[in-house]
C-alpha cells in the first residue's frame, strides 16, 4: 500500500478519521461512478437498443437470451454454474481478507501472512476463471467487436478483472512486507485499507454477477 500520508506524525485529524482511510473512502465513492457508468452502458444496450433479432432484422429487442443467433454468440453463452463457483471463490477471499486484518491487529504476523497469501491466491483463482471464460467465449466466436453484448460484457468484466489484478498486486506486496517484518500491529492500517478496496471490488462483482449473469439470462 502507498504510505502517502507524510504527516503521519500528526497524531490528530479534525474528524479523528485517519487521512488515508478518508482518502480510500472517497476513492471508493468515485469508483462507484466509474462502475456505474460501465454498468449503465451495459444495461442501456441490453434493454433498449436495436440488435439483430432472430429473423435477421435490426429491430428493437433485448439481447437474445439464446446461446447463438444466426451463428453469433449472445447472452446464452454465459456459463452460470461455472461463474457461480468463481464468484464463490471471490466471496471467500473477502473472508480471508477479514481474517488477515484480524490477525495483524492482534499482532499475529504469521497468521497475517497466511491469510494475505490466501486472499491473493483466491483472487488469482477468480482471475484464472475469468481468463478461462474469456478464452472460451473467444473460441465460440464472441469478441469485443462481435456485437454490443460482446463489447459491453468484455469491457465491464474486463475492467473489474483489472481492479482485482491491482488488488492481488497490493496483497502480494503486503505479503512481502509482512515476510520482511515490515508489517506489524502498528501499521495494520495498511491491511485495513487494502481490505476496504478488496471488499469494494468484491461487492462490485456481486452487482455485476447479478445483473449480467443472473438477471441477464
Amino acid at each position, binding site marked *: 500500500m502507498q504510505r502517502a500520508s507524510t504527516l503521519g506524525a500528526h497524531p490528530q485529524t*479534525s474528524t479523528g478519521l485517519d487521512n488515508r482511510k478518508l482518502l480510500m473512502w472517497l476513492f471508493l465513492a468515485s469508483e462507484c461512478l466509474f462502475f456505474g457508468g460501465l454498468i449503465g452502458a451495459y444495461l442501456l444496450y441490453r434493454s433498449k437498443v436495436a440488435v439483430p433479432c432472430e429473423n435477421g432484422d435490426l429491430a428493437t429487442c433485448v439481447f437474445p437470451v439464446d446461446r447463438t443467433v444466426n451463428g453469433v454468440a449472445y447472452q446464452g453463452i454465459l456459463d452460470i454454474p461455472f461463474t457461480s463457483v468463481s464468484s464463490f471463490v471471490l466471496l471467500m477471499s473477502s473472508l480471508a481478507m477479514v481474517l488477515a486484518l484480524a490477525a495483524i491487529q492482534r499482532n499475529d504476523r504469521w497468521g497475517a501472512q497466511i491469510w494475505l497469501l490466501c486472499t491473493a491466491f483466491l483472487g488469482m483463482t477468480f482471475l484464472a476463471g475469468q481468463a478461462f471464460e474469456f478464452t472460451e467465449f473467444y473460441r465460440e466466436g464472441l469478441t469485443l467487436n462481435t456485437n454490443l453484448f460482446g463489447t459491453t460484457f468484455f469491457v465491464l468484466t474486463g475492467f473489474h478483472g483489472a481492479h482485482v489484478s491491482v488488488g492481488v498486486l497490493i496483497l502480494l506486496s503486503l505479503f512481502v512486507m509482512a515476510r520482511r517484518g515490515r508489517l506489524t500491529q502498528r501499521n495494520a492500517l495498511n491491511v485495513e485499507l487494502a481490505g476496504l478496496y478488496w471488499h469494494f471490488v468484491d461487492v462490485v462483482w456481486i452487482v455485476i454477477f447479478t445483473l449480467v449473469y443472473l438477471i441477464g439470462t
Partner: protein
Amino acid sequence: MAGATIGQRRPTIGEALRLARREAATYRGVWSWIATVDHKRIGMMYGVTAFAFFLMGGIEALVIRLQLATPNGGIVDPDQYNRLFTMHGTTMVFLVIMPLSAAFFNLLIPLMIGARDVAFPRLNAFSYWTFLAGGLFMSASFLTGNPGGTIFEGKLGAPDGGWFGYVPLTVISPGSGIDYWALGLLILGVSSMAGAFNFAVTIINMRAPGMTFFHMPLFVWMTLATSFLIIFAMPVITVALFQLLFDRLFDANFFNVAAGGTPLLWQHMFWLFGHPEVYILILPAMGIVSEILPTFSRKPLFGYPFVVFSGVAIAFMSWGVWAHHMYTTGLGAVANSAFGISTLLIAVPTGIKIFNWLGTLWGGSISLRTPLLFAAGFIAMFTIGGLTGVMHSIVPSDYQQQDTYFVVAPFHQVLVGVALFALFGGMYYWFPKFTGRLLNERLGQLHFWSMFIGFNVTFQPMMVLGLMGMPRRVATYPEGLGFGLWNMMATVGAFLIAASILAFIYNVIVSLRSKEWAEADPWDGRTLEWSIPSPPPPYNFAQIPQVHALDDFWHRKYVENERGEPVPVVAGGAQTAEEDEEAPGEHHDIHLPSPSYFPLIASLGPPVIAFGFIYDFALVAVGAVVLLFGLYGWALEPAAE
C-alpha cells in the same frame, strides 16, 4: 522563493528553522523544485505551467479570430481550423482554468485552514507532474496527429473533434489526433482526481483547532464543493473516454450504429460530466471573489451561510441539468421540460450569490484596487452570463440558438468574463503573499480596463452574431450576410485582450524585480494566510493557530465599537505573526514532509503508456514498469524524517 532563502527576515524558532534549512539543503536549485512536496511551490508551478498553456490557447484563439475577421478568410484551411478550435477549447478548459484553480487550491487551502501542508504532499506533487505530463502529451498531437504527415511536412496534427468530442465523428476521425485527445484527457483526469482527493481530505481533516466548517473562509468551502464535483464527475468522463478508445483502437461497438449502438450514449456521458465541469470551473472563481470583496469593502461577507449553502446547492443541482445541452437530440417533451425546469432552478442559488456579493459591497468603505476591479467586473459579467444562460434553459428558444454563436458567446462570457476575471483578481490579491512583492497598481488598472473593454468588444458582438444565425465551428462565411462588421469587432477585441495579457506579464516582471518588499498583510486581510510573513516560511505557521471565529485574523486586529464600526485593537492586543513566533511555550517538532522525486517518476509512466496505445504496445509495458517503479519507490521510502 521559499522561506528558507529569505535573507532579511529574522530567525524564527530554532527547531523549525533547522528543519527548514535541512530541507533546503537536501536539494538545490532546479532539483529543489523537482523534488518539492511543498504546497506553495507546487501551487506556483501549477500557476506558471497553466499560464504557459493559457498563452498557447490564446494564440490559437487569435488565429481563429484572424481567420474569421473578414468574410472568406484564408489564413487557415477548414481542416486546420477544426484542429485549432478543438485545441483552443480543450486547452482552455483542461489545461488553463482547471489547473489555475488548482494553483489557488495549492497555494491557499493549507494557509486558510491553518495547516502546515496538505494531507498528502507527495500525492500533490504527483498531481502536478501528471498535469504537466498530460498537457505536454496532448500538445504533442500537433506534431504527429495528422494522417497526412507530420508538422514538419506542414500538416497540423491536433485533434479535430471539438472539445466535447461528439461521436461518431470522433470514432471515424482519421489519424491519431483524437487518440491523443482522449488519452490526454484520461491522464489529466488522473491529475485532477488526485488533487481533488487531496484537497477534500485536507479540508475535512487538517483544519486548525477551532476552524469549524462554519469558520472556514468561503474559498475553502468552494474548494471542498469543487473537489467533490471532480471526485464524482471525472469517473463518468473516464468511462466515456475508454469507450471511445475501445471503439477507435479495438473496433468495439459502443457507438457503432450499425451494430445497434447509439451516439447519444456519448452525449449523455459527456454532459453528465460536462455540466458539473462547468461548476468545477466556476465555483473556485466564486470562492476567490468571495474573499476579495470583504477585504476591499472592509466588511464581512454578506450572508455567509447563504453563500455557503447556495454554493453547495449549485454543486448538487449541477448533476440534474446535463440534458439542456441535448434539447435538439429528440429526448422528448417531458425530458426537455424537466431539464428546462432544473436549469431554471439552478439560477436561483446563483442569483442569491450575486445579491450577497452586492450586499457585501453595499455600504462598505471600498478601496478600488485592482483585485476589487476584477471582482466587480466578475459580478457584472456574471450577471450577463447568468441571464443568457437562463435563456438557454428555455427549450423553444434554445432550439433556435443550438450550434450558433449565441452558445459560444455566453459560454465565453462565463469562462472568460467570470472564471478568468476572478482568477486574475486572485492573482493580484495573493501575489504579494507568495512572492513578497505587490503587483504594480497602475499597470494592474491598465490590465483590468483593457481586458474588460477587450472582453466586451470580443464577446458581446458574438451574441449578436448568434442571434443573427451565424453557426459556430464554420471556418469562414460568405459576404453579404451582415456578419462582417461584428466579426471584425470581435477580432479587434481579441487583440485588445491579448494586449492586456502582455500588460499583465510586463507587470509581473517589473514587480518581481522591484526592491520594495510587501508587508505580511498589505490589504488588511481577514483570513489566516495574512497572519504569516510574505512569502510564507516552508512550515507556514510557526505555531498552529487557534481559531475562534469566522475571519479570525480580522478579529485579532479589530474590535467593534458601539456603532458596529471596526476599531483597531490597542497595541499589544493584536498578535501578529512575528509576535506569535516569539511567544514562549509549546514549540513542538515541526514535521515537514521530505522532498521526493518518486511522484515525478510515477507521473512519467502514464504518457509512455498512452504513446504505447497509439504507436507500439511494447511502450505500454515500459510505461507500466516506470509507473510501478515510481509508485513502489514512493510507497516504500520513509515518508517523514
